[in-house]
Protein backbone atom coordinates (compact mmCIF):
# COMPACT_ATOMS: atom_id res chain seq x y z
CA UNK A 1 0.00 0.00 0.00
CA UNK A 2 1.46 3.35 -0.94
CA UNK A 3 1.45 6.27 1.42
CA UNK A 4 -0.71 8.21 -1.01
CA UNK A 5 -3.88 6.16 -0.67
CA UNK A 6 -3.52 5.63 3.07
CA UNK A 7 -5.91 7.20 5.51
CA UNK A 8 -4.74 10.52 6.83
CA UNK A 9 -5.13 11.44 10.48
CA UNK A 10 -4.65 15.00 11.61
CA UNK A 11 -5.39 17.25 14.55
CA UNK A 12 -6.34 20.85 13.92
CA UNK A 13 -6.20 23.54 16.61
CA UNK A 14 -7.08 20.82 19.08
CA UNK A 15 -7.80 21.55 22.74
CA UNK A 16 -8.97 18.82 25.07
CA UNK A 17 -9.03 17.79 28.71
CA UNK A 18 -11.06 16.13 31.42
CA UNK A 19 -14.13 17.70 33.01
CA UNK A 20 -13.63 21.17 31.55
CA UNK A 21 -10.00 21.44 32.62
CA UNK A 22 -7.84 21.84 29.57
CA UNK A 23 -4.79 19.63 29.18
CA UNK A 24 -4.11 20.02 25.47
CA UNK A 25 -4.08 23.40 23.89
CA UNK A 26 -3.88 24.31 20.26
CA UNK A 27 -2.41 21.12 18.86
CA UNK A 28 -1.77 20.89 15.14
CA UNK A 29 -0.42 17.56 14.01
CA UNK A 30 -0.51 15.64 10.77
CA UNK A 31 0.38 12.01 11.25
CA UNK A 32 2.60 10.80 8.41
CA UNK A 33 1.08 7.78 6.68
CA UNK A 34 2.80 4.38 6.72
CA UNK A 35 5.28 5.67 9.27
CA UNK A 36 5.97 5.16 12.95
CA UNK A 37 5.25 8.35 14.86
CA UNK A 38 6.40 8.49 18.47
CA UNK A 39 5.06 10.89 21.09
CA UNK A 40 7.36 11.69 24.00
CA UNK A 41 7.11 14.19 26.80
CA UNK A 42 7.28 14.47 30.58
CA UNK A 43 4.56 12.92 32.76
CA UNK A 44 1.40 14.98 32.45
CA UNK A 45 2.46 16.66 29.23
CA UNK A 46 -0.68 15.44 27.46
CA UNK A 47 0.63 12.54 25.36
CA UNK A 48 -2.10 10.12 26.39
CA UNK A 49 -4.74 12.82 26.19
CA UNK A 50 -3.71 13.60 22.63
CA UNK A 51 -3.77 9.91 21.74
CA UNK A 52 -7.22 9.44 23.29
CA UNK A 53 -8.62 12.49 21.59
CA UNK A 54 -7.29 11.35 18.24
CA UNK A 55 -8.78 7.90 18.88
CA UNK A 56 -12.17 9.56 19.53
CA UNK A 57 -12.26 8.32 23.11
CA UNK A 58 -12.14 11.84 24.45
CA UNK A 59 -14.19 14.67 22.98
CA UNK A 60 -12.15 17.80 22.23
CA UNK A 61 -13.09 21.09 23.88
CA UNK A 62 -12.35 22.84 20.63
CA UNK A 63 -10.64 22.13 17.36
CA UNK A 64 -11.02 18.86 15.54
CA UNK A 65 -9.50 15.52 14.66
CA UNK A 66 -9.82 14.68 11.00
CA UNK A 67 -9.74 11.22 9.51
CA UNK A 68 -9.51 11.53 5.74
CA UNK A 69 -10.68 15.09 6.08
CA UNK A 70 -13.79 14.15 8.08
CA UNK A 71 -14.20 14.97 11.79
CA UNK A 72 -13.91 11.73 13.78
CA UNK A 73 -16.71 12.87 16.06
CA UNK A 74 -19.07 12.79 13.12
CA UNK A 75 -18.17 9.21 12.20
CA UNK A 76 -19.89 6.22 13.81
CA UNK A 77 -17.98 4.48 16.61
CA UNK A 78 -17.92 1.18 14.78
CA UNK A 79 -16.80 2.71 11.52
CA UNK A 80 -13.91 4.42 13.31
CA UNK A 81 -12.97 1.10 14.87
CA UNK A 82 -12.57 -0.41 11.43
CA UNK A 83 -10.08 2.27 10.44
CA UNK A 84 -8.34 3.16 13.67
CA UNK A 85 -7.23 0.86 16.48
CA UNK A 86 -6.41 2.20 19.92
CA UNK A 87 -4.71 0.45 22.77
CA UNK A 88 -4.90 2.29 26.11
CA UNK A 89 -2.17 2.25 28.70
CA UNK A 90 -1.96 -0.90 30.85
CA UNK A 91 -5.10 -2.73 29.73
CA UNK A 92 -6.22 -5.61 31.95
CA UNK A 93 -7.83 -8.74 30.52
CA UNK A 94 -10.70 -10.33 32.43
CA UNK A 95 -9.49 -13.27 34.50
CA UNK A 96 -9.40 -16.51 32.53
CA UNK A 97 -9.75 -14.99 29.06
CA UNK A 98 -7.55 -16.99 26.69
CA UNK A 99 -5.10 -15.42 24.26
CA UNK A 100 -7.17 -16.51 21.28
CA UNK A 101 -10.36 -15.09 22.82
CA UNK A 102 -8.62 -11.79 23.51
CA UNK A 103 -7.24 -11.50 20.00
CA UNK A 104 -10.63 -12.47 18.58
CA UNK A 105 -12.10 -9.41 20.28
CA UNK A 106 -10.23 -7.41 17.67
CA UNK A 107 -12.78 -8.63 15.15
CA UNK A 108 -15.56 -6.92 17.09
CA UNK A 109 -16.01 -3.94 14.76
CA UNK A 110 -16.18 -6.27 11.76
CA UNK A 111 -18.99 -8.36 13.18
CA UNK A 112 -22.65 -7.65 13.60
CA UNK A 113 -25.52 -9.27 15.39
CA UNK A 114 -26.20 -11.47 12.41
CA UNK A 115 -22.77 -11.65 10.86
CA UNK A 116 -21.22 -14.84 12.15
CA UNK A 117 -17.57 -15.68 12.62
CA UNK A 118 -16.08 -16.21 9.16
CA UNK A 119 -12.89 -17.70 7.78
CA UNK A 120 -11.81 -14.11 7.17
CA UNK A 121 -12.06 -13.40 10.91
CA UNK A 122 -10.21 -16.60 11.66
CA UNK A 123 -7.46 -15.68 9.21
CA UNK A 124 -7.11 -12.21 10.72
CA UNK A 125 -6.77 -13.68 14.22
CA UNK A 126 -4.27 -16.33 13.16
CA UNK A 127 -2.23 -13.80 11.21
CA UNK A 128 -2.24 -11.33 14.12
CA UNK A 129 -1.10 -14.03 16.55
CA UNK A 130 1.70 -15.07 14.22
CA UNK A 131 2.84 -11.50 13.62
CA UNK A 132 2.93 -10.82 17.36
CA UNK A 133 4.58 -14.20 17.91
CA UNK A 134 2.04 -15.47 20.42
CA UNK A 135 0.55 -18.36 18.44
CA UNK A 136 2.45 -20.76 20.71
CA UNK A 137 0.24 -20.03 23.69
CA UNK A 138 -3.05 -19.28 21.97
CA UNK A 139 -5.08 -21.34 24.41
CA UNK A 140 -3.53 -20.12 27.65
CA UNK A 141 -5.24 -17.54 29.86
CA UNK A 142 -3.81 -14.08 29.29
CA UNK A 143 -3.37 -13.51 33.02
CA UNK A 144 -0.95 -16.45 33.25
CA UNK A 145 1.57 -14.83 30.89
CA UNK A 146 4.53 -12.54 31.49
CA UNK A 147 4.25 -8.79 31.02
CA UNK A 148 5.92 -8.84 27.61
CA UNK A 149 3.82 -11.72 26.32
CA UNK A 150 0.68 -10.03 27.59
CA UNK A 151 1.55 -6.81 25.82
CA UNK A 152 2.06 -8.79 22.62
CA UNK A 153 -1.43 -10.27 23.04
CA UNK A 154 -2.96 -6.82 23.25
CA UNK A 155 -1.03 -5.69 20.22
CA UNK A 156 -2.24 -8.81 18.41
CA UNK A 157 -5.80 -7.86 19.32
CA UNK A 158 -5.26 -4.43 17.79
CA UNK A 159 -3.69 -6.09 14.73
CA UNK A 160 -6.66 -8.42 14.31
CA UNK A 161 -8.78 -5.31 14.08
CA UNK A 162 -6.97 -4.78 10.73
CA UNK A 163 -7.03 -1.03 10.90
CA UNK A 164 -4.72 1.09 8.84
CA UNK A 165 -4.08 3.30 11.84
CA UNK A 166 -2.82 2.05 15.19
CA UNK A 167 -2.58 4.28 18.25
CA UNK A 168 -0.71 2.67 21.14
CA UNK A 169 -0.28 4.21 24.58
CA UNK A 170 2.98 3.19 26.25
CA UNK A 171 3.10 -0.37 24.96
CA UNK A 172 6.62 -0.91 26.32
CA UNK A 173 6.35 0.46 29.86
CA UNK A 174 7.45 -1.92 32.63
CA UNK A 175 9.02 -4.36 30.18
CA UNK A 176 12.61 -5.60 30.01
CA UNK A 177 14.83 -3.75 27.55
CA UNK A 178 15.08 -6.79 25.29
CA UNK A 179 11.29 -7.11 25.21
CA UNK A 180 10.95 -3.39 24.51
CA UNK A 181 13.30 -3.68 21.56
CA UNK A 182 11.43 -6.73 20.22
CA UNK A 183 8.15 -4.86 20.43
CA UNK A 184 9.54 -1.78 18.71
CA UNK A 185 10.93 -3.98 15.95
CA UNK A 186 7.47 -5.44 15.51
CA UNK A 187 5.82 -2.01 15.39
CA UNK A 188 8.38 -0.48 13.03
CA UNK A 189 7.98 -3.53 10.78
CA UNK A 190 4.22 -2.97 10.65
CA UNK A 191 4.77 0.57 9.44
CA UNK A 192 7.59 -0.09 6.98
CA UNK A 193 6.62 -3.49 5.61
CA UNK A 194 2.85 -3.44 5.85
CA UNK A 195 2.19 0.23 5.32
CA UNK A 196 0.34 0.71 8.61
CA UNK A 197 0.35 4.13 10.20
CA UNK A 198 1.35 4.00 13.87
CA UNK A 199 1.31 6.56 16.63
CA UNK A 200 3.01 5.33 19.78
CA UNK A 201 3.50 7.00 23.15
CA UNK A 202 6.87 6.05 24.64
CA UNK A 203 8.77 6.86 27.81
CA UNK A 204 12.20 5.59 26.87
CA UNK A 205 13.88 8.42 24.96
CA UNK A 206 16.67 6.53 23.25
CA UNK A 207 14.21 3.86 22.12
CA UNK A 208 11.99 6.59 20.73
CA UNK A 209 14.89 8.19 18.87
CA UNK A 210 15.98 4.83 17.47
CA UNK A 211 12.62 3.75 16.08
CA UNK A 212 10.63 6.89 15.35
CA UNK A 213 10.26 7.99 11.74
CA UNK A 214 8.61 11.09 13.09
CA UNK A 215 9.24 12.24 16.63
CA UNK A 216 6.85 14.54 18.48
CA UNK A 217 7.96 16.13 21.75
CA UNK A 218 5.23 17.44 23.98
CA UNK A 219 5.42 19.91 26.82
CA UNK A 220 2.59 21.22 28.99
CA UNK A 221 -0.13 20.26 26.55
CA UNK A 222 1.56 21.67 23.48
CA UNK A 223 3.80 20.28 20.79
CA UNK A 224 7.26 21.62 21.57
CA UNK A 225 8.84 20.26 18.43
CA UNK A 226 8.26 17.60 15.80
CA UNK A 227 10.29 16.15 12.99
CA UNK A 228 12.69 13.34 12.24
CA UNK A 229 14.79 12.28 15.25
CA UNK A 230 17.80 13.79 13.47
CA UNK A 231 16.06 17.15 13.47
CA UNK A 232 14.48 17.27 16.92
CA UNK A 233 16.38 14.84 19.16
CA UNK A 234 18.90 17.35 20.45
CA UNK A 235 20.30 18.20 23.87
CA UNK A 236 18.66 21.61 23.85
CA UNK A 237 15.20 20.20 23.05
CA UNK A 238 15.60 17.55 25.74
CA UNK A 239 16.58 20.24 28.22
CA UNK A 240 13.60 22.33 27.18
CA UNK A 241 10.98 19.57 27.08
CA UNK A 242 12.08 17.36 29.98
CA UNK A 243 14.22 19.83 31.95
CA UNK A 244 16.88 17.14 31.74
CA UNK A 245 20.58 17.81 31.33
CA UNK A 246 21.71 15.26 28.80
CA UNK A 247 24.04 14.67 25.94
CA UNK A 248 22.87 13.24 22.65
CA UNK A 249 25.41 10.89 21.13
CA UNK A 250 25.32 9.67 17.56
CA UNK A 251 26.52 6.08 17.67
CA UNK A 252 28.45 5.54 14.50
CA UNK A 253 28.16 1.73 14.50
CA UNK A 254 24.36 1.61 14.59
CA UNK A 255 23.58 5.10 13.39
CA UNK A 256 21.27 5.53 16.42
CA UNK A 257 20.93 8.60 18.52
CA UNK A 258 21.37 7.95 22.23
CA UNK A 259 20.41 10.20 25.09
CA UNK A 260 22.87 10.17 28.00
CA UNK A 261 21.79 12.08 31.13
CA UNK A 262 24.64 14.00 32.75
CA UNK A 263 23.81 13.78 36.47
CA UNK A 264 26.59 14.94 38.78
CA UNK A 265 26.59 11.77 40.91
CA UNK A 266 26.69 9.46 37.93
CA UNK A 267 30.13 7.89 38.07
CA UNK A 268 32.71 8.73 35.49
CA UNK A 269 34.75 5.84 34.09
CA UNK A 270 38.24 6.21 32.73
CA UNK A 271 39.14 4.71 29.39
CA UNK A 272 40.99 1.85 31.13
CA UNK A 273 37.95 0.96 33.26
CA UNK A 274 35.72 0.66 30.23
CA UNK A 275 38.10 -1.37 28.10
Amino acid sequence: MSARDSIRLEAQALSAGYGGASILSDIDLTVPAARLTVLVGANGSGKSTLLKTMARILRPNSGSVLLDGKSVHRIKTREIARKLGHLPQGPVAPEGLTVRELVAQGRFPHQGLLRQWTSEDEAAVTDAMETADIAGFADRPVDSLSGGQRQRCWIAMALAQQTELLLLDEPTTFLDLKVQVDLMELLAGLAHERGRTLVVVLHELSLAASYADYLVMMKEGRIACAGTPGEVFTASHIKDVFDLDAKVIHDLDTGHLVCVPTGTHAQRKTVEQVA
Partner: protein
Amino acid sequence: MTVLAEQAGVRSRTAALSGALAVTFLLFALHVAVGSKTLSPATLLEAIFSPDEKAFEHMIVWQLRLPRALTAMSVGAALSVAGALMQGVTRNPLADPGLLGLMAGASFAVVMASQFLGVTAYSAIPFIAVIGALGAALIVGLIALWVPGGTSPLTLTLTGAVISAFLGALIAIAHLLDEESFDSLRIWLSGSLSGRDLDIFAMTAPWIGAGLVASVLLARQVTALAMGDDVAKGLGVRTGWLKLQLLLTVVVLTAGAVALAGPLGFVGLVIPHAVRLFVGSDYRWIVPYSMVLGAAYLLVVDIIARTAIAPREISTGIITAMVGAPVFIQLVRMKAR
Protein backbone atom coordinates in the same frame (compact mmCIF):
# COMPACT_ATOMS: atom_id res chain seq x y z
CA MET B 1 -10.12 -26.72 4.87
CA THR B 2 -9.46 -27.46 8.48
CA VAL B 3 -12.12 -26.84 11.06
CA LEU B 4 -11.83 -23.28 12.30
CA ALA B 5 -10.60 -23.08 15.89
CA GLU B 6 -13.49 -20.81 16.79
CA GLN B 7 -16.00 -23.23 15.27
CA ALA B 8 -14.51 -26.19 17.12
CA GLY B 9 -14.92 -24.28 20.38
CA VAL B 10 -18.45 -23.35 19.41
CA ARG B 11 -19.34 -26.97 18.71
CA SER B 12 -18.10 -28.39 22.00
CA ARG B 13 -19.69 -25.60 23.99
CA THR B 14 -22.97 -25.86 22.14
CA ALA B 15 -22.97 -29.60 22.82
CA ALA B 16 -22.33 -29.02 26.51
CA LEU B 17 -25.04 -26.38 26.63
CA SER B 18 -27.53 -28.76 25.02
CA GLY B 19 -26.58 -31.34 27.64
CA ALA B 20 -27.15 -28.83 30.42
CA LEU B 21 -30.52 -27.95 28.90
CA ALA B 22 -31.52 -31.60 28.85
CA VAL B 23 -30.52 -31.99 32.51
CA THR B 24 -32.53 -28.88 33.36
CA PHE B 25 -35.55 -30.34 31.63
CA LEU B 26 -35.21 -33.55 33.66
CA LEU B 27 -34.88 -31.50 36.85
CA PHE B 28 -38.00 -29.63 35.84
CA ALA B 29 -39.90 -32.91 35.50
CA LEU B 30 -38.50 -34.14 38.82
CA HIS B 31 -39.47 -30.88 40.50
CA VAL B 32 -43.06 -31.30 39.34
CA ALA B 33 -43.16 -34.98 40.27
CA VAL B 34 -41.85 -34.90 43.81
CA GLY B 35 -43.40 -33.28 46.83
CA SER B 36 -45.66 -34.23 49.68
CA LYS B 37 -47.40 -36.45 47.13
CA THR B 38 -45.04 -38.01 44.62
CA LEU B 39 -46.46 -38.43 41.13
CA SER B 40 -45.52 -41.16 38.69
CA PRO B 41 -44.17 -40.21 35.26
CA ALA B 42 -47.35 -41.57 33.68
CA THR B 43 -49.57 -39.38 35.85
CA LEU B 44 -47.35 -36.43 35.07
CA LEU B 45 -47.61 -36.88 31.32
CA GLU B 46 -51.33 -37.44 31.54
CA ALA B 47 -51.79 -34.30 33.64
CA ILE B 48 -49.88 -32.22 31.19
CA PHE B 49 -51.15 -33.55 27.89
CA SER B 50 -54.74 -34.52 28.75
CA PRO B 51 -55.62 -32.59 31.87
CA ASP B 52 -58.78 -33.59 33.69
CA GLU B 53 -60.12 -30.85 35.93
CA LYS B 54 -61.67 -33.32 38.32
CA ALA B 55 -58.52 -35.35 38.93
CA PHE B 56 -56.88 -34.20 42.16
CA GLU B 57 -53.39 -35.04 40.96
CA HIS B 58 -53.87 -33.05 37.79
CA MET B 59 -54.95 -30.09 39.85
CA ILE B 60 -51.78 -30.35 41.96
CA VAL B 61 -49.70 -30.28 38.81
CA TRP B 62 -51.45 -27.30 37.25
CA GLN B 63 -52.13 -25.18 40.30
CA LEU B 64 -49.13 -25.87 42.49
CA ARG B 65 -46.29 -27.76 40.93
CA LEU B 66 -46.00 -26.31 37.41
CA PRO B 67 -46.25 -22.67 38.48
CA ARG B 68 -43.67 -23.25 41.13
CA ALA B 69 -41.25 -25.08 38.84
CA LEU B 70 -41.61 -22.39 36.18
CA THR B 71 -41.08 -19.72 38.83
CA ALA B 72 -37.96 -21.43 40.15
CA MET B 73 -36.55 -21.68 36.64
CA SER B 74 -37.22 -18.10 35.65
CA VAL B 75 -35.99 -16.65 38.92
CA GLY B 76 -32.81 -18.72 38.77
CA ALA B 77 -32.15 -17.77 35.16
CA ALA B 78 -32.96 -14.08 35.69
CA LEU B 79 -30.80 -13.64 38.78
CA SER B 80 -27.80 -15.53 37.38
CA VAL B 81 -27.82 -13.58 34.14
CA ALA B 82 -28.35 -10.27 35.96
CA GLY B 83 -25.39 -11.09 38.23
CA ALA B 84 -23.20 -12.10 35.29
CA LEU B 85 -23.95 -8.85 33.44
CA MET B 86 -23.39 -6.78 36.57
CA GLN B 87 -20.01 -8.44 37.13
CA GLY B 88 -19.04 -7.81 33.51
CA VAL B 89 -20.04 -4.15 33.47
CA THR B 90 -18.50 -3.23 36.80
CA ARG B 91 -15.46 -5.50 36.40
CA ASN B 92 -16.15 -6.30 40.03
CA PRO B 93 -16.17 -10.01 40.85
CA LEU B 94 -18.32 -9.38 43.92
CA ALA B 95 -21.05 -7.62 41.96
CA ASP B 96 -24.49 -9.18 42.07
CA PRO B 97 -28.03 -8.12 41.14
CA GLY B 98 -28.28 -6.42 44.54
CA LEU B 99 -25.53 -3.97 43.60
CA LEU B 100 -26.69 -0.35 43.18
CA GLY B 101 -29.57 -1.11 45.54
CA LEU B 102 -31.64 -2.79 42.83
CA MET B 103 -32.91 -5.68 44.92
CA ALA B 104 -33.59 -3.61 48.03
CA GLY B 105 -35.35 -1.02 45.88
CA ALA B 106 -37.60 -3.61 44.28
CA SER B 107 -38.39 -5.25 47.64
CA PHE B 108 -39.02 -1.91 49.28
CA ALA B 109 -41.43 -0.83 46.56
CA VAL B 110 -43.35 -4.11 46.65
CA VAL B 111 -43.59 -4.07 50.45
CA MET B 112 -44.74 -0.47 50.58
CA ALA B 113 -47.23 -0.87 47.77
CA SER B 114 -48.85 -3.95 49.21
CA GLN B 115 -48.79 -2.86 52.87
CA PHE B 116 -49.66 0.77 52.70
CA LEU B 117 -51.27 1.35 49.35
CA GLY B 118 -53.15 -1.93 49.38
CA VAL B 119 -51.93 -2.90 45.94
CA THR B 120 -52.39 -6.63 45.60
CA ALA B 121 -53.07 -7.02 41.90
CA TYR B 122 -50.56 -9.48 40.49
CA SER B 123 -50.24 -7.55 37.28
CA ALA B 124 -49.04 -4.51 39.22
CA ILE B 125 -46.29 -6.22 41.20
CA PRO B 126 -43.69 -6.57 38.41
CA PHE B 127 -44.27 -2.92 37.49
CA ILE B 128 -43.85 -1.81 41.07
CA ALA B 129 -40.72 -3.90 41.46
CA VAL B 130 -39.20 -2.40 38.29
CA ILE B 131 -40.03 1.12 39.46
CA GLY B 132 -38.52 0.39 42.88
CA ALA B 133 -35.33 -1.02 41.38
CA LEU B 134 -35.01 1.88 38.95
CA GLY B 135 -35.73 4.34 41.74
CA ALA B 136 -32.98 2.89 43.90
CA ALA B 137 -30.54 2.93 40.98
CA LEU B 138 -31.49 6.54 40.28
CA ILE B 139 -30.91 7.56 43.90
CA VAL B 140 -27.54 5.81 43.87
CA GLY B 141 -26.72 7.54 40.58
CA LEU B 142 -27.75 10.97 41.86
CA ILE B 143 -25.70 10.60 45.03
CA ALA B 144 -22.76 9.51 42.88
CA LEU B 145 -23.10 12.59 40.70
CA TRP B 146 -23.50 14.83 43.73
CA VAL B 147 -20.39 13.55 45.53
CA PRO B 148 -17.14 14.71 43.89
CA GLY B 149 -15.56 11.76 42.10
CA GLY B 150 -18.59 9.68 43.03
CA THR B 151 -18.96 7.90 39.72
CA SER B 152 -15.97 5.67 40.44
CA PRO B 153 -16.89 1.98 40.70
CA LEU B 154 -15.92 1.93 44.37
CA THR B 155 -18.18 4.84 45.34
CA LEU B 156 -21.05 3.44 43.28
CA THR B 157 -20.72 0.08 45.01
CA LEU B 158 -20.54 1.66 48.45
CA THR B 159 -23.47 3.96 47.75
CA GLY B 160 -25.45 0.96 46.53
CA ALA B 161 -24.66 -0.91 49.75
CA VAL B 162 -25.64 2.09 51.87
CA ILE B 163 -28.94 2.56 50.03
CA SER B 164 -29.65 -1.19 50.33
CA ALA B 165 -29.05 -1.03 54.09
CA PHE B 166 -31.19 2.10 54.38
CA LEU B 167 -34.11 0.57 52.49
CA GLY B 168 -33.67 -2.62 54.53
CA ALA B 169 -34.04 -0.53 57.68
CA LEU B 170 -37.21 1.08 56.34
CA ILE B 171 -38.65 -2.34 55.58
CA ALA B 172 -37.79 -3.41 59.14
CA ILE B 173 -39.55 -0.32 60.54
CA ALA B 174 -42.63 -1.06 58.46
CA HIS B 175 -42.48 -4.56 59.88
CA LEU B 176 -42.41 -3.27 63.47
CA LEU B 177 -45.33 -0.91 62.86
CA ASP B 178 -47.60 -3.54 61.43
CA GLU B 179 -46.43 -6.91 62.60
CA GLU B 180 -49.56 -8.90 61.88
CA SER B 181 -50.20 -8.10 58.26
CA PHE B 182 -46.49 -8.25 57.66
CA ASP B 183 -46.37 -11.94 58.41
CA SER B 184 -47.33 -12.90 54.88
CA LEU B 185 -44.51 -10.76 53.49
CA ARG B 186 -41.96 -12.08 55.94
CA ILE B 187 -41.58 -15.35 54.09
CA TRP B 188 -41.48 -13.56 50.74
CA LEU B 189 -38.69 -11.33 52.05
CA SER B 190 -36.52 -14.34 52.87
CA GLY B 191 -36.79 -15.47 49.26
CA SER B 192 -39.57 -17.95 48.78
CA LEU B 193 -41.16 -19.73 45.87
CA SER B 194 -44.21 -20.99 47.70
CA GLY B 195 -47.74 -19.92 46.95
CA ARG B 196 -47.02 -18.77 43.40
CA ASP B 197 -49.75 -19.40 40.89
CA LEU B 198 -49.77 -19.24 37.14
CA ASP B 199 -51.29 -15.74 37.11
CA ILE B 200 -48.38 -13.98 38.75
CA PHE B 201 -45.98 -16.05 36.71
CA ALA B 202 -47.76 -15.04 33.53
CA MET B 203 -47.53 -11.38 34.54
CA THR B 204 -43.83 -11.54 35.26
CA ALA B 205 -42.68 -13.90 32.52
CA PRO B 206 -42.74 -11.28 29.71
CA TRP B 207 -40.47 -9.01 31.75
CA ILE B 208 -38.00 -11.74 32.50
CA GLY B 209 -38.24 -13.08 28.96
CA ALA B 210 -37.47 -9.67 27.50
CA GLY B 211 -34.55 -9.23 29.90
CA LEU B 212 -33.10 -12.62 28.95
CA VAL B 213 -33.39 -11.95 25.23
CA ALA B 214 -31.73 -8.55 25.67
CA SER B 215 -28.92 -10.20 27.65
CA VAL B 216 -28.19 -12.68 24.88
CA LEU B 217 -28.17 -9.89 22.30
CA LEU B 218 -25.86 -7.68 24.37
CA ALA B 219 -23.54 -10.47 25.52
CA ARG B 220 -20.92 -10.00 22.81
CA GLN B 221 -20.48 -6.35 23.69
CA VAL B 222 -20.19 -7.16 27.40
CA THR B 223 -17.06 -9.21 26.69
CA ALA B 224 -15.50 -6.15 25.06
CA LEU B 225 -16.70 -3.91 27.90
CA ALA B 226 -15.19 -6.25 30.49
CA MET B 227 -11.75 -5.31 29.13
CA GLY B 228 -12.25 -1.73 30.25
CA ASP B 229 -14.04 1.29 28.82
CA ASP B 230 -11.14 2.56 26.74
CA VAL B 231 -10.41 -0.80 25.12
CA ALA B 232 -14.11 -1.28 24.42
CA LYS B 233 -14.39 2.16 22.84
CA GLY B 234 -11.34 1.42 20.71
CA LEU B 235 -13.14 -1.69 19.47
CA GLY B 236 -16.15 0.34 18.45
CA VAL B 237 -18.44 -0.17 21.45
CA ARG B 238 -20.62 2.79 22.39
CA THR B 239 -19.94 2.28 26.06
CA GLY B 240 -22.34 4.84 27.54
CA TRP B 241 -25.28 3.58 25.52
CA LEU B 242 -24.34 -0.04 26.19
CA LYS B 243 -24.17 0.55 29.95
CA LEU B 244 -27.61 2.14 29.92
CA GLN B 245 -29.03 -0.81 28.00
CA LEU B 246 -27.36 -3.22 30.40
CA LEU B 247 -28.58 -1.35 33.47
CA LEU B 248 -32.16 -1.48 32.20
CA THR B 249 -31.76 -5.18 31.41
CA VAL B 250 -30.42 -5.92 34.87
CA VAL B 251 -33.18 -3.83 36.46
CA VAL B 252 -35.88 -5.73 34.59
CA LEU B 253 -34.38 -9.13 35.37
CA THR B 254 -33.79 -8.35 39.03
CA ALA B 255 -37.17 -6.73 39.52
CA GLY B 256 -38.86 -9.65 37.78
CA ALA B 257 -37.10 -12.12 40.05
CA VAL B 258 -37.94 -10.09 43.16
CA ALA B 259 -41.58 -9.81 42.11
CA LEU B 260 -41.75 -13.60 41.90
CA ALA B 261 -39.60 -14.77 44.76
CA GLY B 262 -38.53 -11.86 46.93
CA PRO B 263 -34.92 -10.79 47.38
CA LEU B 264 -33.13 -14.07 46.77
CA GLY B 265 -29.40 -13.77 47.33
CA PHE B 266 -26.43 -15.96 46.42
CA VAL B 267 -27.65 -17.18 43.01
CA GLY B 268 -26.74 -13.97 41.20
CA LEU B 269 -23.31 -13.83 42.79
CA VAL B 270 -22.17 -17.42 42.64
CA ILE B 271 -23.73 -19.04 39.57
CA PRO B 272 -21.89 -16.72 37.12
CA HIS B 273 -18.62 -17.56 38.86
CA ALA B 274 -19.33 -21.28 38.69
CA VAL B 275 -20.09 -20.81 34.99
CA ARG B 276 -16.83 -18.92 34.43
CA LEU B 277 -14.86 -21.82 35.89
CA PHE B 278 -16.03 -23.87 32.92
CA VAL B 279 -16.59 -21.53 30.00
CA GLY B 280 -14.06 -18.77 30.67
CA SER B 281 -14.62 -15.07 30.18
CA ASP B 282 -16.58 -14.78 26.95
CA TYR B 283 -20.04 -13.46 27.73
CA ARG B 284 -21.48 -15.00 24.56
CA TRP B 285 -21.12 -18.21 26.56
CA ILE B 286 -21.39 -16.92 30.12
CA VAL B 287 -24.88 -15.52 29.52
CA PRO B 288 -26.57 -18.64 28.08
CA TYR B 289 -24.76 -20.96 30.49
CA SER B 290 -25.71 -18.76 33.46
CA MET B 291 -29.29 -18.86 32.27
CA VAL B 292 -29.42 -22.65 32.11
CA LEU B 293 -27.30 -23.30 35.19
CA GLY B 294 -29.20 -20.72 37.25
CA ALA B 295 -32.51 -22.31 36.28
CA ALA B 296 -31.22 -25.81 37.04
CA TYR B 297 -29.71 -24.72 40.34
CA LEU B 298 -32.87 -23.14 41.66
CA LEU B 299 -34.88 -26.21 40.63
CA VAL B 300 -32.53 -28.43 42.65
CA VAL B 301 -32.60 -26.08 45.61
CA ASP B 302 -36.36 -25.87 45.56
CA ILE B 303 -36.70 -29.65 45.35
CA ILE B 304 -34.62 -29.84 48.52
CA ALA B 305 -36.58 -27.01 50.16
CA ARG B 306 -39.82 -28.86 49.55
CA THR B 307 -38.70 -32.37 50.45
CA ALA B 308 -36.00 -32.10 53.14
CA ILE B 309 -38.39 -31.89 56.09
CA ALA B 310 -41.61 -32.77 54.24
CA PRO B 311 -44.47 -32.17 54.68
CA ARG B 312 -43.18 -28.86 55.98
CA GLU B 313 -40.99 -26.80 53.74
CA ILE B 314 -38.01 -24.54 54.19
CA SER B 315 -37.78 -21.12 52.60
CA THR B 316 -35.90 -21.50 49.31
CA GLY B 317 -33.73 -18.47 50.09
CA ILE B 318 -32.31 -20.28 53.08
CA ILE B 319 -31.43 -23.41 51.13
CA THR B 320 -29.80 -21.56 48.19
CA ALA B 321 -26.81 -20.54 50.26
CA MET B 322 -26.77 -23.56 52.57
CA VAL B 323 -26.46 -25.99 49.69
CA GLY B 324 -24.63 -23.68 47.34
CA ALA B 325 -21.73 -22.61 49.53
CA PRO B 326 -20.15 -26.05 50.02
CA VAL B 327 -20.81 -27.00 46.38
CA PHE B 328 -19.14 -23.85 45.14
CA ILE B 329 -16.12 -24.31 47.40
CA GLN B 330 -15.76 -27.86 46.08
CA LEU B 331 -15.95 -26.60 42.48
CA VAL B 332 -13.18 -24.09 43.08
CA ARG B 333 -11.05 -26.78 44.70
CA MET B 334 -11.57 -29.17 41.79
CA LYS B 335 -10.69 -26.48 39.30
CA ALA B 336 -7.60 -25.35 41.19
CA ARG B 337 -6.08 -28.80 41.10
